[in-house]
């Protein structure tokens, strides 16, 4: 009986050596199979493929104020987005003008987005009742100068849709 047991143990010892070697070969088969298949390369060549590189529609890139073809945006300075922003990244500077009915009315002077403190949480866009905001697909946001990260979102000369004149 003891003899059989010894045989079994010796067999087990050699099986372990075989098993170990086989496991190494299995691993090498995986890497080797990728080595001979260049089609399995998944990386992309970034600056070269810039023309074909499209972000998804919902991609949260830079924040932008939607302007129509007449250079009009729909911000009515309600300040909801600035209040919703957890980091205080949105700053709205407005001026008061006399409306047609004689009441003072706020119009947008500068819609400032501090990109350096923005964490792209996406709370501002759905908060806008006028649907004035959206996220751009632009993703190359790095700049050399921190001051360039403070962006004015309303284009020069633009005006609000709500303003009739």
């Amino acid at each position, binding site marked *: 009986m003891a003899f059989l047991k010894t045989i079994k143990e010796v067999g087990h010892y050699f099986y372990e050596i075989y098993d170990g070697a086989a496991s190494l070969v*299995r*691993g090498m088969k995986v890497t080797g199979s990728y080595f001979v298949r260049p089609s399995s390369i998944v990386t992309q060549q970034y600056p070269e493929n810039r023309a074909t590189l499209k*972000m998804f529609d*919902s*991609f949260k890139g830079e924040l932008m104020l939607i302007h129509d073809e007449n250079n009009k945006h729909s911000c009515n300075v309600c300040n909801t987005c600035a209040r*919703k922003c*957890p980091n205080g990244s949105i700053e709205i500077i407005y001026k008061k003008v006399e409306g047609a009915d004689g009441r003072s009315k706020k119009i947008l002077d500068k819609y400032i987005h501090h990109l350096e403190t923005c964490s792209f*949480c*996406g*709370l501002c866009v759905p908060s806008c009742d006028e649907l004035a905001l959206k996220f751009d697909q632009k993703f190359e946001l790095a700049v050399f100068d921190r001051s360039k990260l403070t962006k004015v979102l309303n284009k020069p000369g633009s005006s609000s849709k709500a303003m009739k004149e």
Partner: protein
Amino acid sequence: MEETLLDIDMQEKEEYIINMGPQHPSTHGVLRFETCLQGEKVKYLIPHCGYIHRGIEKMCEHLTYPQIIHLTDRMDYLSAHINNEAVALCIENAMQVEVSDRVKYIRTIFAELTRIASHQLWWCAFGMDLGALTTFFYGLRDREKILDIFEETTGSRLTQSFNTPGGLMSDIHPNFQKRIKEFITYFRKKLPEYDQLLTGNIIFRERTKGIGMMTKEMAIDYGVTGPSGRGSGFHCDIRKIAPYSAYPFIKFNEITLTEGDTYSRYLVRIAEMWESLNILEQLVDNIPQGSTMLELKVIKAPKGEFYQRVETARGELGVYIVSDGGPSPARIKFRTPNFSNLFVINKLAAGHKIADLVAISGSLDLVIPDIDR
């Protein structure tokens, strides 16, 4: 541990102290192990954390509930969605509203995708800790598919902020289900490769078996949860203990092993990837119709205290909200899984080689911002 290390006369005690971290390839972040060596052997080690402490709990006291969500992304950034879900669920419980089944299903699908993505990243980093450098690229290659699914629907790859108290930020993309089905078939083919490359490998098995033994009692005593705890036989899966979202509707197994060594912690995570694929398969075709956002006028927790437990990829996340009835919490506490998982490492690594310390800290799958918050 009573005396600080400065008091110890190192010459006399023949101690060789090296600092692993804060910048060290194996700590996966800014964590420092003050490691005392005797030759190659680790005598003891003291973890020092706080290098990336941002005071999230303090910041949350000044933010409204929807704004808190985006900070939780930045705790355990690899299970960002599940962190979001925990806060959202806690606030929904507090307000005593219930989201539609559609939201529950989508949240659960996202959570399981997050779990797979997190385990993939853990797998490749763990391979790299042990010196198998190719695993890193295979893991990331497959993880990319999940991140694409995330990006298409939520617009972000890592910190999605997709949950909000009362529902989701937006509805899912029309391609969502198709992409997930593609991913399931794709990943079912790739997962055996993981086994061939690492799990079966004799060097890997020798490096991990019997290393860092953690008994069940130790796991419970130290509060080690998640796959690390389940590798020791601690039944700590919150998805089973206190089911939330769509987990009551589906069938799945809680994966536990009893060995408690590094290898069993590894196996639990591999098995969880398979199990998550099964869960996804059950859910993806059955997303019910319904609204994705409740019409909540004001999001305010009533006066009181609320606790929500969820299972992230690394263990149990608890959100404890103390509310005075205002729009911001009076106190919010995140009981993060890595915080408890970290401090058992002293017990596990003592007496092992320095190479085993790397393996053990890899097998606990630490994410440092989650510890420091």
